[in-house]
């Protein structure tokens, strides 16, 4: 088993880059949407066979045990090669959670199938009546003998149509003094009877989400991860890294390259009024890169991300929208055209970034919630 950490950073980067360039399919590079499991499964298995599917996992669990700085290199090269985002919640969310909070039996049962691409995980957090106010969730799990019986509904579960399993927050104590205290974290097989899915199309017409209904879903008592009613603590620990992921410059940068294409195609860079606004966005993007780099450095040094990482999500996702909006404007009449549009031999889907930049300010804690967090936990402004 190779000790990847023993290799120098540059040599490691070189090897990763070469592999990504040759092994990843050209037609799946730089897509503006998330990949379906059927599209990306071959690549998932390629990585798994190479032993590269879980960079952060320890070796004894089948991971690469990469140092933080080498994990960043892999992430950077993944972006650079335009590799689409796979259903990676098993690797990034569930696996680490089970390793930290799970029983030995859970580790045996769940970790290997994640590496092998047999289990695909989705997240069951949001509910129709608890969007921003996640802790108010109502989906309940009641113990009956050796099972929990789950009733309720989850919504906005991305890619749930492809998932075999769901990690889910459920209410296990309605009488807890604080609503955060009555929540548990469970693991659920999506084939359990009583689970139904209603796909939800997004504004761009893609089936991105589903609402998932639970009607007396009986799941074994060992579905519980950690202690009963400890679920909120587990969920919170996962959030910082999620925000770093959402705050990556990847999506704004991709929208910017489209903007640049359209601007060139239409000769707008010679228009100083346009060029001035274009320059401001380029500058905003460069600053985002630097801000992201600062947080990545923190991870690289092995430090924990504080609540201030929320500003990365705020800036990144609002910049994404601003770029997408100038793109629409730059296209003039073609800014209202659906699908790929021709600009001087470049095909650009003008509206895709406009649509796809919308949820970034809503999900993962809306930007309003992020501002509340920063005001309270970073700026120490009073609650009342």
């Amino acid at each position, binding site marked *: 088993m190779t000790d990847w950490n023993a290799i120098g950073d540059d040599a490691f980067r070189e090897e990763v880059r070469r592999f990504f360039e040759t092994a990843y399919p050209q037609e799946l590079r730089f897509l503006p949407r998330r990949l379906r499991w059927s599209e990306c499964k071959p690549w998932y298995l390629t990585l798994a066979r190479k032993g590269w599917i879980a960079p952060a996992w320890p070796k004894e669990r089948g991971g690469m045990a990469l140092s933080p700085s080498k994990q960043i290199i892999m992430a950077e090269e993944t972006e650079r090669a335009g590799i689409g985002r796979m259903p990676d919640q098993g690797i990034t969310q569930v696996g680490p959670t089970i390793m930290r909070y799970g029983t030995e039996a859970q580790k045996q049962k769940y970790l290997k199938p994640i590496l092998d691409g047999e289990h695909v995980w989705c997240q069951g957090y949001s509910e129709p009546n608890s969007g921003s106010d996640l802790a108010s969730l109502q989906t309940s799990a009641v113990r009956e003998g050796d099972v929990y019986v789950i009733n309720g509904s989850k919504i906005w579960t991305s890619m749930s149509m492809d998932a075999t399993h769901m990690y889910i927050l459920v209410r296990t104590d309605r009488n807890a003094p604080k609503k955060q205290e009555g929540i548990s974290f469970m693991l659920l097989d999506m084939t359990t009877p009583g689970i139904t899915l209603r796909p939800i199309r997004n*504004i761009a017409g893609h089936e991105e989400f589903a609402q998932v209904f639970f009607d007396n879903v009986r799941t074994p008592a060992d579905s519980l991860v950690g202690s009963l009613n400890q679920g909120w603590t587990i969920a919170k620990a996962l959030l910082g890294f999620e925000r770093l992921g959402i705050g990556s410059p990847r999506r704004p940068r991709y929208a910017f390259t489209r903007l640049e294409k359209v601007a060139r195609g239409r000769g707008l860079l010679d228009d100083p009024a346009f060029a001035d606004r274009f320059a401001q966005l380029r500058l905003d993007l460069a600053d985002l890169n630097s801000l992201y780099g600062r947080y990545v450095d923190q991870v690289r040094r092995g430090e924990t991300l504080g609540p201030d990482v929320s500003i990365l999500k705020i800036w990144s996702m609002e910049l994404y929208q601003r770029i997408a909006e100038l793109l629409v404007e730059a296209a003039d009449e*073609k*800014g209202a*055209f*659906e699908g790929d549009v021709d600009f001087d031999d470049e095909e650009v889907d003008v509206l895709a970034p406009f649509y796809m930049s919308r949820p970034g300010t809503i999900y993962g804690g809306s930007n309003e919630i992020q501002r509340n967090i920063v005001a309270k936990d970073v700026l120490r402004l009073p609650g009342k």
Partner: protein
Amino acid sequence: MADIDDGRTDERRMLAASVADFARRATDMARVRKWRGVAPGFDRALWREMAALGWTGLLLPERFGGMALGFAEMAEVSRGLARVLMPEPLVACAVLAARALGHCDNEALGAELLPRIAAGELIAALAWQEQAGDLGSRAPVTEAALGSGRVVLNGAKRFVAGAAGADGFIVSARAGAGVVLVWVPAATPGLSVRLEAMADGRFAGRLELADARLPEKHILAPAEIAQSALDRAVSEATVMAAAELLGVMSRTLEMTLDYLRTRVQFGRSIGSFQALQHRAVDLYVQEQLASVALADAVSAIDDRPDDPTTAAAVSRAKARCSDAGSLITRQAIQMHGAIGFTEDSDVGLYVKRALTLSAWLGNSAYHRRRFAATASADAQ
């Protein structure tokens, strides 16, 4: 939420009420969704109902079966129908095309076509644009060869609004040093029409003219008249597109305020959160600015169409309405949260309509430039 009292006449208020009444009766979001992306994108039977109410001929002289009303009234109809996203292409046909026809000097052809437009029997579309971002009338690449009692057209036109259901097109073309307008029925050999899908589910027409031959009497107007007819019709339709944007943004703001009042999170309605309240106020400010800018533009084209300040007023209204419409609809998604991002939510339909209307007949950047070029120092 009450509008500022804007001093509209009772007649205009009554017209607005009857438009709202018709809209409620004749359409709903299911019908809007049904026609999305399906040619022609609207309902010919309902079009005739609208004609019977006088709206397709609202601006036409009485001798052609019209109501001879002004843009103040047309704005009420456009705005009211836009509030419910009525898919029928009223501004494209009854303003842009009908006015272009009406401003021409071919009395015979006008007398033949305009009464049929007023009656809802004929749907016409104006085909003059060739390049994105260029609304000028001066130098089309499309060519008209005249001679032997006929005119032969060669070239291409793009972004033709209302093309999907049009029975014929008013086509601009270069003839020598000048520009002519020619009436081209949809079935003319040599004319082909492709439809390009737009965000709002409607279509932009892409016309190819390959040796399309028309009799000489189809020439609607020669050089100077053609050009000024075009410029004026485009200007008038621009103001009506702004009126549609106002309808779209007002309805979206109402929906959003309703949602803010009723959606509960953290044990209180989200409309009680000050950050959202202040943002809602800023949207309201933009809507009210759009409303006053539109009112100015409407009086300008009604009362002083030839005044040099009119172009600035028109561009000011379209710039403000495009910006405000885009902002309000985008913020409506944000304030509705994830639900606003779904295909099922009506919010998305309003967002997409605002996208199309903003881009049509010059977006805000275009009209800001035009405003700067036409506004004199005292027009401030």
